[in-house]
C-alpha cells in the first residue's frame, strides 16, 4: 500500500518536470478581473503568443491590488483601469511609461422592479442620488479596485457619503466584480459594473442595465511596463514587446475584433 | 572451570535497594543474591514488589537507593545487552511474526542469510512455523507470548527475565510456555521469573524468592521454601490464605 502510494507520488513528480516547469519565455501581467472574466485576454493573447513565442501569464485581481503587486515587483506589465493611480505609479518611479490601450464604459445595473426609479436615465450622479434617497440596497466592490474608485468618484459628485450608510442599504462586499454582482443578484441590489464583466456574467437573476451612456462612465485602460531599475528581475524586453504589440496595429485590431454576445466590449484608443 | 567462571559472572546481587513513592516504601531489599543455574521464581501476592524487583534487576528502573551488581560489578550496558525480558502483556511490533524476530537479529548485526536460518529455527522452537508472514498482532494470546519469548531468546541472552508471562493464559497455553522456559533453562539460559502461581513455582523453580509488602521474606531452594516455609507470610501465602 505504502509502496504503491510512494510510487504514485514519484510518478507524479516525474510528470511535474513536464509542462509546468518547462522554461519558455514568459511575462507576468498584473491585470484586472474585467479583462480576464470577459474573455478579452483569452481572445487576444494567443495572437501575441503565436507571433512572439512569449507566454503571457495573467494575474487578475482588483486594480488596487494589481498596482500594489507591481510595486512589489511581482509582475512585468501592469494593465489596469484607474488613470490617476497609474500616472501616480509612473511618477513614483515604479513604472516606465503609461500608454492608453482601450476603453469601455461602466453601467449601473439594478433590479427590474427598480425601486429608486432610475431606469432609462443617462445621468449617473442623479441616479446615485435617487438610490441614496430611496435607501435601496446598493452593492459596492469596497475593494479599492478601479471600479470601486470610479464609484466613489460618482458618490462624491452626488454629495453623498455612502460610508455613513455602510451596513444598511450600502453593502460593501470587499470582493471582485463578479462576486459583487452575485451579491447584487442575490439581494436585488443596484451595482456599478464595467460593461465587459456584465456582458460575460452568467448569474444575472433579476438584474438589468438601468443607467448607461453618461460620459462620466467612461472607463479608460492603460498599460505600463514595471520599472526594471526598481526590480532587477523584471522581464523588460519581453514586457516592452507585449506593450508595443498591444498598442500597435495588431493588438488594437485584436481588441476591436473581440465580441461577446454579438457586442464589442472594448474600444481600442491607443495614440 | 570455565563454566564456574561464567556462572560467577552471572551472579546477580541486590544491595540496599529501596524504592519509595509518596513516602511509602514499594521495595526494600537490603541484600539478595541470585546464584545457582536453575530457574529462580519470584513468588508472592499482587503488590508485593515482584515486578518492581525484576525491573531493577534488568536495569529498567533505577532504584532510589542502593544498586544491582552482576558478576561483582555494577550493572552496566554490557550486562544489559546479555539480558532479555518478557512482559506480562507481550509487546509485539506491528509487523509480521518473522519481522519481530528479524528486528532483534538485525540489531545484532547478523547477516541476512544467517538471520533467515535463525528465524526458521526459532519459529520451530516456538511452534510458530507456518505463521512467519502473519501479522504479529493477530496472534492468539498464547502464540503472542511464545513469540515474545522467542524474540527474547533471539538475543541469545545469558539471563532471561519473565514477568508473569502466563497470567493471562489458559492451562494448555501455559503448559506450552512453561516447556519453552524449561528448555531455555536446560540450554543454559538463566531464568528469573515472577509469578503469583504457587503451582507454577513448584513446576519450574529451582530456587524461590518469596516477597511480601516490598520485602524479601524468604529465599531458598524451591522444595525447602514450598514444603517447609520459614516465615509466617510464606506459610500463610502457601496455605492459600489471603495475604495483604
Amino acid at each position, binding site marked *: *500500500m*505504502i509502496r504503491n*502510494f510512494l510510487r*504514485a*507520488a514519484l510518478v*507524479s*513528480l516525474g*510528470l*511535474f518536470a513536464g509542462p*509546468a*516547469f518547462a522554461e519558455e519565455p514568459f511575462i*507576468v501581467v498584473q491585470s484586472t478581473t474585467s479583462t480576464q*472574466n470577459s474573455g478579452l485576454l*483569452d481572445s487576444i493573447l494567443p495572437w501575441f503568443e503565436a507571433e512572439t513565442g512569449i507566454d503571457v*501569464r*495573467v*494575474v*487578475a485581481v482588483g486594480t488596487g491590488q494589481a498596482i500594489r*503587486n507591481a*510595486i*512589489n*515587483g*511581482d509582475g512585468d506589465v501592469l494593465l489596469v483601469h484607474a488613470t490617476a493611480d497609474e500616472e501616480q505609479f509612473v511618477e513614483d518611479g515604479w513604472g516606465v511609461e503609461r500608454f492608453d490601450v482601450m476603453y469601455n464604459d461602466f453601467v449601473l445595473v439594478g433590479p427590474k422592479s427598480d425601486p429608486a426609479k432610475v431606469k432609462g436615465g443617462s445621468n449617473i450622479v442623479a441616479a446615485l442620488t435617487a438610490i441614496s434617497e430611496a435607501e435601496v440596497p446598493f452593492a459596492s466592490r469596497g475593494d479599492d479596485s478601479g471600479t470601486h474608485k470610479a464609484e466613489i468618484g460618482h458618490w462624491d459628485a452626488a454629495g453623498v457619503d455612502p460610508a455613513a450608510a455602510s451596513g444598511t442599504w450600502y453593502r460593501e462586499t470587499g*470582493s*471582485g*466584480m*463578479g*462576486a459583487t*454582482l*452575485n451579491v447584487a*443578484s442575490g439581494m436585488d441590489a443596484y451595482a456599478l459594473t464595467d460593461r465587459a464583466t456584465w456582458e*460575460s*456574467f*452568467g*448569474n*444575472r437573476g433579476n438584474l438589468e442595465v438601468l443607467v448607461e451612456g453618461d460620459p462620466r462612465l467612461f472607463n479608460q485602460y492603460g498599460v505600463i511596463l514595471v520599472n526594471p531599475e526598481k*526590480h532587477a*528581475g*523584471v522581464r523588460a524586453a519581453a514586457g516592452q514587446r507585449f506593450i508595443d504589440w498591444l498598442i500597435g496595429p495588431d493588438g488594437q485590431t485584436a481588441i476591436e475584433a473581440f465580441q461577446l454576445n454579438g457586442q464589442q466590449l472594448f474600444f481600442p484608443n491607443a495614440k | 572451570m570455565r563454566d564456574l567462571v561464567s556462572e560467577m559472572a552471572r551472579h546477580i546481587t541486590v544491595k540496599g535497594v529501596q524504592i519509595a513513592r509518596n513516602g511509602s516504601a514499594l521495595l526494600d531489599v537490603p541484600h539478595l543474591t541470585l546464584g545457582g543455574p536453575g530457574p529462580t521464581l519470584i513468588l508472592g501476592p499482587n503488590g508485593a514488589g515482584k515486578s518492581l524487583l525484576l*525491573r531493577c534487576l*534488568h536495569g*529498567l528502573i533505577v532504584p532510589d537507593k542502593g544498586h544491582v551488581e552482576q558478576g561483582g560489578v555494577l550493572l552496566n*550496558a554490557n550486562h*544489559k*545487552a546479555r*539480558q*532479555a*525480558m518478557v*512482559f506480562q502483556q507481550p*509487546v509485539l*511490533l*506491528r*509487523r509480521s511474526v518473522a519481522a519481530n524476530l528479524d*528486528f*532483534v537479529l538485525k*540489531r545484532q548485526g547478523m547477516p541476512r542469510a544467517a538471520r533467515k536460518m535463525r528465524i526458521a529455527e526459532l519459529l520451530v522452537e516456538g511452534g510458530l512455523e507456518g505463521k512467519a508472514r502473519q*501479522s504479529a*498482532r*493477530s496472534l492468539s494470546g498464547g502464540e503472542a507470548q511464545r513469540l515474545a519469548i522467542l524474540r527474547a531468546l533471539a*538475543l541469545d541472552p545469558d539471563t532471561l527475565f519473565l514477568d508473569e508471562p502466563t497470567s493471562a493464559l489458559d492451562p494448555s497455553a501455559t503448559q506450552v510456555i512453561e516447556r519453552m522456559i524449561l528448555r531455555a533453562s536446560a540450554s543454559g539460559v538463566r531464568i528469573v521469573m515472577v509469578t503469583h502461581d504457587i503451582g507454577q513455582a513448584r513446576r519450574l523453580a529451582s530456587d524461590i524468592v518469596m516477597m511480601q509488602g516490598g520485602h524479601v521474606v524468604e529465599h531458598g531452594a524451591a522444595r525447602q521454601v514450598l514444603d517447609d516455609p520459614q516465615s509466617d507470610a510464606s506459610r500463610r501465602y502457601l496455605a492459600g490464605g489471603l495475604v495483604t
Partner: protein
Amino acid sequence: MQGFAVEFSAAIALILNGDPELWAIVLLSLKVSIFAVLISALIGMPVGAALAVARFPGRRVLIILMNALMGFPPVVVGLLVYLMLSRSGPLGVLELLYTPTAMIIAQVVLVTPIVAALTRQVVEMLAEEYSEQLRSLGVSRLASVPVLLWDARLALVTALLAGFGRAIAEVGAVIIVGGNINHVTRVMTTTIALETSKGNLALALALGAILIGIAVAVNAMVSTLSLRAEREGLRHA
C-alpha cells in the same frame, strides 16, 4: 432553476467527456497537493516523532503551538508566503511567485502542522506502549524514532491523507501565491472561485462535484486504513 439544472448537467458532461482543459486543471491540483503532502511528510513526521519521544523544556508549548497552527487561516499563510516570494521579499530572486512551486510551498506550510501534530499523537501513544520493551532491547530514544514511525505507518498514512484533504480543498493561499494563471497555476479551487465570480455557477458546481468526489475517495481510504489500523490495535487517540 430549471435552466440551472440543464447548465449543471452540461457542465458535468463537459467534465466526464474529458475536456482537456478541465482535466489539466484537475491533474495540476493533484500534482501540487500530492507533492506538498510528500514534503510535509518529510518534515512533519520526524518533527512530530521527535516531539513524541524527546523530553525538553518548552516541549508542551511547542505542542500547543503546533496544534494551533493546524487551524492557521490559509489566506494568512498565502500572504506570508507571498511576502517571502515577492520580488521585494527575501526570496524574490528565486522567481518562484506565480509558479506551482509557490503553491506547493504554501500548502506545505498549511499541511506540515497537521502531519506533525497527528504524528506526535500517534507516536506518543505507541511510544508509551513500546517504551519498556524497546529499552529492554537496548534501543535508544533516538533509535526508537524510525521503529515507532514504521510501526505507526497505517495511522501516519491516515494523517497524510487528512493533510491532502486540507491541501487540495484550499483556495485562499494558492490563489494569492499562484495567481490563478491559466495553464500555469490554475487549480480546481481557484477555477471554482473564478467561475463563481463570472457567475458560471453550474460549471463551478460541477468542478466542486469533482472535488467532492476526490474528498470522498480520500476519506474512504482514510476510513479503510483506520479500520485496519484499529484492527491492529492502533487508533488515533
